[in-house]
Each structure stands twice: as C-alpha cells, then as structure tokens.
C-alpha cells in the first residue's frame, strides 16, 4: 500500500464587517482613547457594548464612557504566544472589568510572569501608538497602582453622564482577516489514485455491493455505505457526456477563454469526472465526443482532453453518466 499523502492547507480570507451604530462608536472611541460602554434597561453598563439588551432584547443605544482603569476578574497565562496575538512575549489573557463597567472585557496583560498576576489586581489600558479604530488600539493592559477613575491613566477626566458616541470621521467597517492552518490528508484511496496518476494511469475502486467503479475513489461507496478496495484501471479514453463553454476568466486560472469544461466518463468508470477539452474549436465540442488525456511534463493531472477521432458515442451508451 502506498504512503498516505499529507500536506499543509492554509485557509485565509480578509472578511469585512459592517459595524452598525454601537460597534462603530466603540471602535471609533478607541481610536480617540475613549472606552465606551452601553447602559442596559436595568441600569448596568456593558463593556464592550452590545446592540441589544441581553435581558429584555430591547435595542439599547445609551452609550457611556468608562475609565481606562480596571480590575482583573480572572486570567490565564499564555506561555507561548502565537502569530497574531497581542504580544510577542509570554503574557496573561485577562478579563478586565473597567471602572464604571458591570461586565469584563477580554484582552492581554503585559506582566513579567504568572507570579505577577492575580485576580483582583489593578490594571490600566496601554494605548497603541498608531490607532485605527480596532480592538488592537488597546495594545494591552498593564499593572497600575492608582485609584479608580483617576485622570492619571490618560490625562483626561471622564465626563459625567452619557457619551454621545459621536466622533468625527467614524469607523463604519473593519477588515477581520481570518486564517486557519490545517494538515490535510486525502486518505488511503485518494493517495493510491494520485500515486497511479504519477504513472499516467487512472485507477478507481469498485464497490463490492453495487459493482459501480468510482473515479476518483473515496474508499467507500456513497450509495451502499460499504468500503471499497478492489482497484480498477479505467480509461485512458472516455466520452464527453455534457459540458459548458466558459466565457469568463476565473481568478488564478491561466486559461484563455472561451474554453470547454466537460464531464467525461472514462471507459470503465461509472460516473463522470470534470476536465477541460482542447485540440478542437470550442464551438465544435459536443455530447458524445470521444476524448483522450493530454499530459504535460511534471503535472499531476492531465492538462486537458483532446478528441481521439473515433465516431461519437451513442447517447444511449452514456445517458446515465451525465
């Protein structure tokens, strides 16, 4: 049995977020070194703020400024920071209840070691030098010995009562890049299929129950629910069962349009695979066309399929393989 293949798979995308009124005010405030909470109908102050009251479900918009000092309510030490985390040196994840708030905010605490962190310790915001209207405008928290509500934290006093939440040039949307790192393995059946392809052979597997030949093989028959093991070489020739003519250029694909994207039933296979047709003008491709693979040096898959010159297959012979 060939080795089972494995390779890294990175999935990442710069998602965008429309913030809505409350998050817009919160993040714009951070840019201006102002931390905003929202007052609930039962007169609690939630930081970070939310749009809807968690108790009554009412829409809440009563913003209030809290101080950038607070108390750690619980924490966990992070020995080995990973890419994208707030600090590059070991730090504590903390929940901080800012003075004037009734709920805690998750952030990072810069501390020399876990012995320097305790629940109940006083901390204050360390603002980022460059602020853009993002949670990272709070670079992290740091230990702080002063009193609650003292202006020492930012040099500003906290206004009494609510905050309008209105700032010039508000942030209305952010980019939230996401990245997931996987190790992908196609499994035994696909690995064997790919191994055979390197010798330009197409090898599927036959279901022991319904006798259908699956290409590519999956290691199991999706209809019968039983494992497949019997290897069957199919092709190399096949029949175009149906197709479309692609007229729009796909991103990251170096293929000139128009081209034909076809379903091809390789001889001996019981379902069609998908590939490009070449070696024939796109408007002369037809259902039933007989084709054979064209390989390029070093490629894992055929580059495309070309006509063999055989007579077209009769519709009856492939109508179950569209």
């Amino acid at each position, binding site marked *: 049995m060939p080795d089972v293949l494995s*390779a*890294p*798979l990175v*999935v990442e*995308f710069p*998602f*965008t*977020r*429309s*913030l*809505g*009124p409350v998050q817009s005010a919160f993040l714009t405030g951070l840019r201006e070194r102002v931390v905003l909470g929202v007052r609930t109908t039962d007169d609690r102050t939630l930081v970070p703020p*939310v*749009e*809807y009251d*968690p108790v009554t*479900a009412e*829409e809440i918009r009563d913003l209030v400024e809290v101080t950038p000092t607070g108390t750690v309510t619980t924490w966990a030490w992070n020995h080995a920071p990973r890419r994208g985390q707030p600090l590059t040196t070991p730090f504590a994840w903390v929940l901080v209840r800012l003075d004037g708030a009734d709920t805690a905010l998750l952030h990072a605490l810069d501390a020399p070691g876990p012995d320097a962190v305790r629940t109940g310790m006083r901390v204050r915001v360390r603002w980022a030098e460059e602020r853009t209207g993002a949670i990272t405008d709070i670079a992290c928290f740091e230990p702080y010995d002063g009193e609650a509500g003292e202006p020492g934290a930012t040099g500003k006093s906290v206004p009494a009562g609510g905050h309008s939440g209105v700032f010039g040039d508000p942030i*209305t*949307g952010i980019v*939230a890049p*996401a990245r997931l790192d996987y190790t*992908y393995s*196609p499994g035994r059946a*696909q690995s064997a299929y*790919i191994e055979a392809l390197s010798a330009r052979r197409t090898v599927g597997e036959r*279901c022991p129950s*319904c006798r*259908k*030949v699956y290409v590519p093989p999956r290691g199991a*028959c*999706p*209809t019968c629910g039983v494992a497949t093991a019997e290897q069957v070489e199919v092709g190399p020739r096949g029949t175009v*069962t*149906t*197709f*479309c*003519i*692609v*007229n*729009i250029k*796909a991103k*990251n*694909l170096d*293929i000139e349009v*128009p081209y034909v*994207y076809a*379903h091809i039933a390789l001889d001996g296979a*019981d*379902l069609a695979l*998908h*590939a*490009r047709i070449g070696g024939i003008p796109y408007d002369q491709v037809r*259902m039933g066309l007989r084709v054979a693979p064209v390989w390029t040096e070093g490629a*894992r*898959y055929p580059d495309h399929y070309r006509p063999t010159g055989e007579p077209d297959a009769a*519709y009856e012979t492939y*109508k*179950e393989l*569209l």
Partner: protein
Amino acid sequence: MSKEPVAVVGIGQTRHVAARRDVSIAGLVREAAGRALDDAELTWADVDAVVIGKAPDFFEGVMMPELYLADALGAVGKPMLRVHTAGSVGGSTALVAAGLVAARVHGTVLTLAFEKQSESNAMWGLSLPIPFQQPLLAGAGGFFAPHVRAYMRRSGAPDTVGALVAYKDRRNALKNPYAHLHEHDITLEKVVASPMLWDPIRYSETCPSSDGACAMVLTDRAGAARAPRPPAWLLGGAMRSEPTLFAGKDFVSPQAGKDCAADVYRQAGITDPRRDIDAAEIYVPFSWYEPMWLENLGFAAEGEGWKLTESGVTALDGDLPVNMSGGVLSTNPIGASGMIRFAEAALQVRGQAGAHQVDGARRVLGHAYGGGSQFFAMWLVGSAPPGS
C-alpha cells in the same frame, strides 16, 4: 396522538440589496425578526424558542454566529437551534421550527435565516483549494451549466426557454418591494443579449449576490386563534438528502427531490399537484431550473416542464404562477433564500403578497434545494387548516 397544526402568523424580511453596510449581522437579522413579530402583533416575550439558519460559516467568517445573535433575537434564556443544509437551509430551518410546534414542544417559535454576502465572497467559500486536487475549472455557474445542457438534450427544449424564465422572474420582482433586483427597463431582448457566461447560461439568467434576512413566527392552534391576520397553515413539509456525486446520480431530476415532493403531497392529500396546487415558489438560481424542477416536483411529466414555461402557465397571471416574488433570480441572500421561498408561499395563502398576490391562492408550495442538488426542503401551506 395527532400532530399539532402549525400556523404561520408573522412574516418579515429585509429589503434585500447587494450590501447592507449600515447594519451589523445582528442589526440585519433583528430587522427581519422585528417585522415578523410586528406582523404577528407579538413581543419577544411571546416567543418560546428560536430556530436560525444560514449557509456555511465561511461565507461571513463568523464561526457559529448564532451564539452572538442570541441577544439580537431575544433568545437569552430560551432554546436556540442552528440549522445548516447549504442553500436549502432557509427551508429546512423553517421545517425544524415547524416540527417543534407540531410536536407540542413549543407553542410559538421564531424562525429566521440570513446571509450577509457582502462581508465575504461566497465563491471563495465554496472553492477552498484542496491539496492534491485539481482546482474547479468553472465556478458556480460552470458547475450547473452542464446539467442544464443535459436537461436540454433530454427534453428537447428549445434554447429560448431559459431567457423566458429570467424575463418573467425579473418582471415579477418589480412588483415586490423586498426584491433585490428591480430592473425597470428589462426586456426579453436584453436578457437574450446579455453575455453568455457559461454557455448555455447567460448573465441575466443567474442569481445576484445579496444581503438579507427573512423571519417567520410559527405557532399552534391557540396562537393562530389569537392572530390578528389570517394564518397560513402547514399542510405538508419534508426534507430529503442524497450524496452530491454518486454513480447513477440524476442531476437533472434528483431522486431526493422527487421523494421529498411525494412525501409533502402524501401528507397534504395532493394527488395531482398541477391541479391541486395554485402556485409555487421554487428555488431557481439559474433560469433553466424552473422547467427542471417543475418536472422533479411532478407539475409536469418528464421532458415537458419547459412547455409550462413557454406557454405562460408559470407567469404571474398564468394557471400555475411560479416565483411570484421574483425568485432567487432576483434576490439571493443564500442562507435566507430558502426561507424567502417558504415565506412567499405563506404570504400568498394569507392574501398578504401585495402587488404580486395570486388571486384566490389557497394552496402554495415553497421549495428549496442546496449543495450540488444534494439537500431538498419543501412545504405546502394552505389558507385553511389541515383536514378542513
């Protein structure tokens, strides 16, 4: 013990557009849910449970968004369920909610589905690169276009039918203020002249990408008796699935779709859908799926569906109007699209569909499908309670 009858007493949706940059996801779902509650003249306290659906999390990149949406939907302290069945999810979400009422688990359930496509790129989310595999060569339309060609070959339909569907649905959308596309100057000539993207599918025969949400309030007999407006009654509902690809798969008329429709008709006592059903709102993301699904759903014999389209039977003033709302071809917030179909069916039998109301609609089918024609969800709703 027989099932509790299920009634739709509230319907709400957002005005679907390409990008709702003025609201968060929470703000978007809230808008639809609030309108459904207003329609039912109920408050958050009247709701016993929330059932929410959307398409893959990769579409917005918020993992398990239902967790963060609990407070926006008044679900704190109540059961909240998330459903996912790809593009059919709006339909299956409503059916899961209906099941909770039918089983007398809950009296009144808020069900909602959404998508905010502008926050991501659905094509990216559906075509993540997989090591060792050849990249998909054609995009979403390229996946479906060969099946359309297979249908044309099998049925002998003239190649004009797809454009007729698109023209009809885009015109219907002009009567629906919630529809995304309002192409006031649409003509059949313009549809035919639009670029051929994935031959045989033209640009104007494809669905748009939308931001939107749709919500419904489902309730029991007692709730229906208190409702301020006529309810829509659930007469039959079913879901079926099958693998995306398997030897013997019929992409033109999948077995799971046939089985799902047969189950719905059996529950509702429908023996001849063409005669017994007054209108249908079916999931048609590419124009040719109208005749294909008409056959799959039993409204026409195999190979005959296109004749209903061509002869005007499926027009708004036809004998079997199809996609009165303008359909998926005019509005496509993917996760919500199935529920919009179900909601349109309910609006019709309640007589609340406004300018796109079908006169005398008493029994209307709502239909959704998703994945590579893998998941099916359908309901039949009526103006009178089941058994009456």
